[in-house]
């Protein structure tokens, strides 16, 4: 013991210096690892702390924020305005009308905890409509020479109209239990109607037979109509506008 005390008495500066150097080394290591350690510690605490702080502040300011929201809500800022009606004078010659019958087999699922079969409702509906091909006469171009009146018209365009008043439900299936909600049924039916209309438009407009027939009729009918009011005695020659540049 005496030796140890003597040793410390004789070498205390060296011991202090050694401890100081060791501390310095540790400090350097800590400094180097500080960034990573901070990240790890931060990550670990982030979620909990964030939720805790957020919850605390949210609850603390709840009353004040509720009042602010109430003011905002009662401010009737959610007000939309749009034109509900529109009147357009047009000049389109109908050249072909195709009667259309649409059969829609509609199915809708709903949650069923006791079975994999989720079908809650199915229906078969039939509606009537018409696909109307028209030539827009406002886009017609006329040039004449000594003997001929050259008329260029756009190709017929098709529009499909569905008469909802003809809608007839042929049959329905309805699950007895777990058959969903009225609101979901309403939304499902509304979206079905939108999809059905899009599909019909797409299919009918792509029907090349109908389109070709409409083109033939367009040339014949426009020629006939213009001949009826032609006082010049010149020949009328009707063709389609070929390129966009012709328009």
């Amino acid at each position, binding site marked *: 013991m005496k030796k140890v005390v003597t040793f410390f008495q004789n070498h205390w*500066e*060296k011991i202090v*210096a050694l*401890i*100081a150097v060791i501390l*310095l080394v540790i*400090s350097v290591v*800590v400094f180097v690892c*500080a*960034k990573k350690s*901070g990240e790890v510690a*931060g990550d670990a605490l*982030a979620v909990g702390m964030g939720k805790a702080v957020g919850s605390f502040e949210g609850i603390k300011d709840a009353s004040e924020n509720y009042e602010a929201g109430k003011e905002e809500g009662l401010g009737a800022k959610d007000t939309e305005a749009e034109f509900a*009606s529109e*009147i*357009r*004078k047009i000049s389109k*010659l109908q*050249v072909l009308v195709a009667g*259309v*019958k*649409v*059969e*829609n*087999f509609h*199915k*809708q*699922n*709903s*949650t069923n905890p006791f079975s994999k079969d*989720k079908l809650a*409702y199915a229906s078969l509906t039939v509606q*009537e*409509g018409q696909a109307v091909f028209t030539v827009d*006469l406002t886009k017609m171009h*006329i040039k*004449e020479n000594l003997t001929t009146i050259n*008329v260029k018209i756009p190709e017929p365009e098709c529009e499909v*109209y*569905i008469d*909802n*008043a003809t*809608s007839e439900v042929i049959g*329905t299936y*309805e699950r007895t239990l777990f058959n969903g*909600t*009225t*609101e979901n049924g*309403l939304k*499902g*039916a*509304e*979206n079905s*109607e939108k999809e059905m209309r899009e599909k*019909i438009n797409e299919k009918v407009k792509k029907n090349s037979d109908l389109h070709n*027939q409409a083109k033939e009729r367009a040339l014949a009918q426009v020629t006939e*109509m213009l001949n009826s009011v*032609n*006082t*010049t005695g010149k020949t009328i020659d009707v063709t389609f506008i070929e390129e966009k540049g012709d328009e």
Partner: protein
Amino acid sequence: MSDKKEIVTTDSKKVIIRMIIFIVAVIALVASFILFITSGSVALNSAIKSSEETFLFEKEKTYEDFKETFMELGENNHHVSNRVDIDITSIKTDNRLQVLEVINTEYINCDEPDEKITAWFEVKGKGIYTVNMEAAEYIIDNRHSTVSVRVPKPELAITDSVVENKFFVDDSILKNGSVAKGSRLYEEAKVKGANVIKEEFSTNTDYYEIAEESAEIAISNLVYEVNQGVKDLKVTVEFY
């Protein structure tokens, strides 16, 4: 004397060494202290920065995972499908001139008070008014450069309507409705809406008057365009 001097020199060396050791120790201690303080600050900053990023990343990721899972579940449980068959029932050539297109919005309610259901719908309707050019009569007087066109009065030829639910509340205690009830409700609104639109378009005299004006302009323009070279051409359009 020499030995004494040597002893003094040796003591001086020891003092210098001790001083150097002491200075090293002090510098090391100060450096350690500064490094510790700086490390703390760096660690804190890293922790803050990293935690923010991690927090946001984890929150978004977890949210997206939940969203995807529940969307899949919801889609599967409420899947709606349609099989649409289109039949062309007739094709006929037509010679009607569309002269007016009207788009109008009506509102209908299909409430069911017994079941505590309130349902209001917006009906967007379109009406097309046409003149039947098949029945047109043309009188051309080259001598007086006049063209008279007699056509039937415009009539409402096409109506179409799209129904959209704008407000729905099921205020029943048990909420014992069904998908079928909702579907029937929409079907009812479709038919009711179509009839309201037809009634509106077929009885509004203003639309017929505007359609006549439009038809007169459209037919006159047609005659003038074909007879561009005819001087002082007079065109009259009559409706019968």
